[in-house]
């Protein structure tokens, strides 16, 4: 089934600047693999080497964080909207003052 995925700005260079893509997947793990197949390199940005979603990136199925569902085993159904949301800080540089 086709699942709509919102791609955050920092990852859009992997999706040819598309903010929204569609992939076929029945759970979140399959969704990440499907994204990697279409957009090689994106999985490394989302996941640690052990395959777990990085701790400064969250994946939401509709409005729900998968960490509070079944993590990457969370199943997906037609019409679900997935959002990948990274922590953002803003501002100048790490040594500077304010954004």
């Amino acid at each position: 089934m086709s699942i709509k995925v919102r791609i955050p700005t920092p990852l859009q260079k992997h999706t040819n600047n598309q903010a929204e893509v569609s992939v076929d997947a029945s759970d979140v793990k399959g969704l990440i693999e499907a994204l990697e197949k279409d957009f090689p390199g994106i999985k490394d940005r989302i996941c640690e080497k052990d395959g777990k979603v990085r701790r400064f990136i969250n994946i939401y199925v509709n409005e729900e964080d998968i960490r509070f569902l079944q993590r990457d085993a969370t199943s997906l159904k037609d019409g679900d909207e997935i959002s990948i949301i990274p922590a953002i800080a803003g501002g100048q540089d790490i040594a500077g003052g304010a954004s």
Partner: protein
Amino acid sequence: MNLTDAQIERYSRQLILPNIGGKGQERLLKARVLVVGAGGLGSPALLYLASAGIGKIGIVDSDKVELNNLQRQIAHSTNTVGMPKVDSAKKTLNAINPEIEIITYNLRITSANITDIIKDYDIVVDGSDNFPTRFLVNDACVLAKKPLSHGGIFRFDGQAITILPGESACYRCLFPEPPPPGLVPSCQEAGILGVVAGIIGTIQANEVLKYILGTGDLLTGRLLIFNALDSSFRQVKVPKDPNCPVCGKNPSVTKL
């Protein structure tokens, strides 16, 4: 506290709001708000908080105003380039509202000084520019039980959430750890549209006003996500994380 004639005139357009009135204005005038960072987020937040009559506003920033700040940091101006941002912002706020007290902290906020600084305030606005400071401000506010308005911006994207320690999810419930240095580009590398800072900083000011007035629903337990390109506002749920390293059941962060 009786409002003077000048105060009644100055605040008349909000005094007539049913959620504010004389009582609400007195609460605002007695409130103490700390803004960390007088930059893109802090500037609009400071302008609206000062205009609304927040009685005591603290500003923390260690930087000086640079020309490249003025595209978004609207509390500063061309003739304050080179001035410490806290002094430049104070000058602007005093010109808008000379009745309120502005306390400046021309320093970098650190684990050694943050607890002492935030203790004198009712609520904290985080407008800092980097992950270590954001996590420090979150942890300090949770440990001191200080309400916190968090805002973040990147290119055309903005995020905001309000944290009531003990009651609602904290920033580490949302993101347990900062990204390692170098993995996420900074605004200097990535760029930022000035109005994104304006919109998110203004939302932070709105959260502070609602908190002080005790009106409306705060952005607690949910993250507001703004995108400037499609003008979309969305929200996702942010539950309290029982495994949160700072506000969970067995916290690993117990001091700064």
